[in-house]
């Protein structure tokens, strides 16, 4: 009897041990599969293993009893030798199982792959978006054993450049190659305003049946628009009052008072290149009652803006130009985002524009509180083309921005979203008469007199991208695109440097009105050039400035645009000496100098070495230096000429 009890107790202990040995690894494997699975199918498979084990558990005691009895029967039935063989086989099985189970842990590669999140944004919003996306990745890591679940890749492009690519589903066009020129196809687009999204919708509306865009329906590939932040257009600067006067309840009222003062100054980014600039332009093209001003007044105000603004495509470049000089703007219309970032010493973006170490220009005033004006409503745009996995990541980022991530908005210069904004039409953040404002601006702008000097040195024969030809042929394409924007009253001339064989001057086509014949002559002359030889950059710049200043009335914008892919190789003058000459010529004749630097040419200062970078010349010439990879020269040139023909 005692033997029976002892034997029964032994069996109970043995049962518990066998139970643990068999059940726990199986359940553990199921749990591991559930945890490590990267998609719902694998999670389901893991759950089924756990379910199978659970079902098994319900009858585990009976099973263990049966198993032990079975083993005992077999054990007694076989010979001593067979028992040794069975024991050996069992050891081998356990060892093999250990290898299979343990090996995956030994080869642990750490975190599972992150989901790539391609985020397209505006050049002005690049830094803020990158900071927000980085914080989101860290947030996902904190909740996941330090492993981020997403890898955000943020990149920027102008709406003018991306709108047609988005409408074409990011497919190649005749001359456009979005994957090469713009970057990956985005999973999310964070432009500054719904005004940008309208551009895409309008392109699509021209090609799609009406019913696909009727009643505010979003046509594919647009899927969902969610406002995630806001940023008011503000009036800021050293000449701006700290608190708005009682009778100025609108931004345009504030601006009207400012412009009524003697010798007014007002800086604004280009309305045709920048959405923030366009909304800012509503501030000076409306009166205190928010009505569009008279065309004569618009022209007058436009001239004030032109005189006070260093040429800049966007507000980051606009403020960077002031940052370089160390001089605060008297008055600037800009988004509160960019202004706040500047004051906080955060990077603004833009070529050669470094973050100010300390808050610059204190004290300067910002007048926006309680004043009615346009607002950037920062939409978060999702697309129909996004795959299921990326869609989940995009949703997660959007929800975080709308929820817990909201506390980081102020850190990057943004305010909380306006929930009443976000609609493409009838949006209270966007002035209703935006199209009329733009038309008024275009009427008010001055015609241009522009000389373009194209580098035709030997290095321009270097290849550019797949099947795109040489740097020079790409530049020629840029000239053709720029000429497409030429107005009937605009004047244009073309030089190439060095002088081609058989020519005694750099002139290919003299400055003349933009008739179809003149355009044809310009393109024909440029295509006949065979690039070779040295780079007389400085001599060309000085001669070009003199040439442009020799004609045209004072009200006309006059500019020299130079495209170069390298440094000067012939002049005995230093860059600083040339900059001094440029300053003199530009001040005397009000001719602006713009440079498009590609290849080895550099706009920005080489860190630690003051007095380098072609921006020295363009700063002296009150113009802009734009860096462009060889493949992006046509787009950069087209954007610059849009600004020039608009009289800026």
């Amino acid at each position, binding site marked *: 009897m005692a033997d029976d009890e002892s034997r029964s107790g032994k069996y109970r202990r043995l049962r518990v041990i066998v139970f643990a040995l068999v059940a726990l690894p199986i359940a553990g494997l199921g749990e591991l599969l559930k945890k490590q699975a990267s998609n719902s199918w694998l999670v389901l498979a893991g759950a*089924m*293993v756990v379910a*199978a084990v659970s079902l098994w558990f319900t*009858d585990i005691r009976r099973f263990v009893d049966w198993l032990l009895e079975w083993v005992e029967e077999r054990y007694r039935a076989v010979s001593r030798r067979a028992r040794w063989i069975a024991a050996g086989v069992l050891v081998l099985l356990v060892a093999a199982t250990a290898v299979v189970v343990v090996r995956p842990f030994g080869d642990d590669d750490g975190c599972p792959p992150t989901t790539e999140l391609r985020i397209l944004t505006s050049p002005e919003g690049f830094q803020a978006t990158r900071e927000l996306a980085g914080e989101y990745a860290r947030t996902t890591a904190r909740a996941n*054993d330090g492993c981020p679940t997403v890898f955000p890749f943020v990149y920027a492009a102008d709406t003018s450049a991306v709108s047609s690519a988005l409408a074409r589903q990011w497919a190649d066009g005749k001359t456009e190659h979005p994957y090469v020129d713009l970057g990956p196809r985005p999973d999310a687009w964070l432009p500054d305003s719904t005004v940008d999204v309208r551009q895409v919708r309008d392109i699509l509306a021209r090609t799609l049946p009406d019913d696909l865009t009727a009643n505010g329906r979003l046509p594919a590939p647009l899927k969902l628009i969610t406002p995630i932040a806001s940023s008011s257009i503000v009036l800021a600067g050293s000449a701006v009052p700290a608190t708005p006067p009682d009778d100025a309840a609108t931004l345009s009222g504030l601006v009207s008072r400012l412009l009524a003062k003697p010798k007014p100054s007002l800086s604004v980014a280009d309305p045709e290149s920048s959405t923030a600039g366009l909304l800012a332009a509503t501030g000076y093209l409306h009166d205190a009652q928010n009505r569009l001003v008279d065309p004569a007044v618009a022209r007058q105000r436009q001239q004030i803006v032109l005189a006070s603004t260093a040429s800049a495509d966007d507000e980051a470049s606009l403020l960077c130009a002031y940052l370089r000089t160390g001089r605060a703007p008297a008055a600037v219309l800009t988004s509160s985002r960019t202004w706040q970032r500047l004051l906080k010493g955060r990077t603004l973006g833009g070529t050669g524009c470094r973050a100010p170490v300390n808050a610059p220009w204190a004290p300067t005033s910002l007048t926006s509180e309680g004043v009615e004006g346009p607002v950037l409503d920062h939409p978060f745009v999702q697309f129909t083309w996004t795959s299921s996995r990326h869609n989940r990541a995009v949703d997660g980022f959007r929800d975080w921005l709308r929820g817990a991530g909201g506390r980081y908005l102020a850190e990057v210069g943004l305010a909380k979203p306006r929930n009443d904004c976000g609609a493409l039409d009838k949006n209270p953040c966007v002035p209703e008469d935006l199209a009329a404002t733009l038309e008024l601006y275009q009427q008010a702008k001055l015609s241009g007199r522009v000389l373009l000097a194209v580098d035709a040195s030997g290095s321009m024969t270097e290849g550019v991208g797949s099947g795109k030809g040489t740097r020079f042929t790409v530049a020629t394409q840029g000239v053709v695109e720029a000429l497409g924007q030429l107005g009937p009253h605009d004047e244009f001339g073309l030089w190439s440097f060095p002088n081609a064989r058989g020519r005694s001057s750099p002139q290919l086509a003299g400055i003349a009105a933009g008739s179809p014949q003149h355009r044809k002559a310009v393109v024909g002359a440029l295509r006949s050039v065979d690039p070779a030889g040295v780079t007389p950059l400085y001599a060309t710049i000085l001669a070009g400035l003199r040439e442009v200043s020799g004609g045209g009335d004072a009200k006309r914008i006059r500019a020299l645009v130079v495209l170069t892919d390298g440094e000067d190789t012939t002049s005995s003058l230093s860059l600083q000496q040339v900059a001094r000459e440029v300053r003199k010529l530009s001040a005397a004749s009000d001719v602006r100098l713009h440079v498009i630097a590609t290849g080895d040419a550099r706009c920005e200062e080489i*860190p630690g070495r003051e007095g380098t970078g072609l921006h020295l010349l363009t700063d002296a010439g009150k113009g802009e230096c734009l860096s462009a990879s060889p493949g992006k020269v046509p787009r950069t040139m087209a954007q610059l000429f849009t600004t020039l023909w608009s009289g800026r």
Partner: protein
Amino acid sequence: MKRLLSGPVAWFTLGVLAMVVTASVRSLIDQPPPQPQGGELVILTGEDESTGKQRQVLVNKWNLENPDTPARLEVLSRSSDEQHSEMVARAQSDSPNVDVYNLDVTWTAEFATAGYIRALDESVDVSGFLDAPRKTCEYDGKLWALPFNTDVGLLFYRKGVSQNALPATLPPDPNDVRALVAANPNLKAGFVTPLDHYEGLTVSALEAIWAEDGDVYDAEKDLVVVDSDGVRNGLKKLADAMKSVDSLPPAVDPQSRGFREDTSRAAFQRGEVALMRNWPVAYGQLRTGDRPMTDFDVAPLPGEGGSVLGGQNLAVATGTKNPQAAQKLVEFLTSEESERTLFRDGGLAATRTVVYDDPQVRQLRPYAPVLKDALVKGKSRPVTPHYALFSSIFQDIVTNALENGGNLPPDAVTRLTKALRGQVV
């Protein structure tokens, strides 16, 4: 038997069978059994920077020989960051529509681990490839790709610098600088290497560390070994080399902190420095353009440390519907004849040994023997599926160290160890 079937074993078996069926269906949805078939093969790649677009030339040749499975280059941006983002996103998407990826050598582990690419058949003959680039195609005991073109750092020097004046190690020491200045008194610095905050900083810092017999990661022990004298000495020497000693110009141009490959080349071309670390492609770039240079030559980087290996590898996408043809295409593009074309006509460093011994190639690319020697000593960057994160953290640490006399931040080991596993602090 009846007891067996009605008991717990039956329940367990039922559950497991359901799991197996689910997994099989999932497998069929994800990867239909590969069957040989025709159809276009898409190669996802960055822009072709070779002279005369030799990659397209090779694809055209393939298409003539294989009209049933023509290939097409789908070209992405020149920026490797943008290439990486699009390739990873495409691989993760529901319908990647890619048959072959042209991957940077540092991405093989990531793509293999994540299941974006297929291991190649064991039948592939890899005997003709140089060891170093071939090894960048291997991960976890399998061959995942074939090396398309390789890259390795070279020392570019002015011909006015005598062989005796060339430094025995990098960065040059004050005596080396003295000898360089004796040959050219107008030098602003002895040596230039890219130290801007990008992958070039990882490359330059690793080479400085290796030159001092240090390392960042011990692959055998799977250990970050950055807290060592070799690493501290390497970074300290690099930081110190940017300062003037005894009224001599600095050994390393301090402006290198803002230099990439192109700006380093410009400084060398302007004669501001006598020595430059750059990739082989700079050889052709210096010899062309409006100020072609001929008074320079190249050598392997001095010292025993070796140089960082670069280059691209061709891998077959997991989602391809025609893996056999895709692998055949990869083998064609990396064949001896193709590699000869890429190097001889396009200037892309070949991955096959025999190309460097070809007299015709040597005539057109006289630096071929030097390049081959450098490749033999080339070393890979740390192999991890999380290389992009690792490299960005390493760059932050090196930047911090260079600003602090070469001293590492206290949390360097922790951050790098976590980054190797894909974690962030």
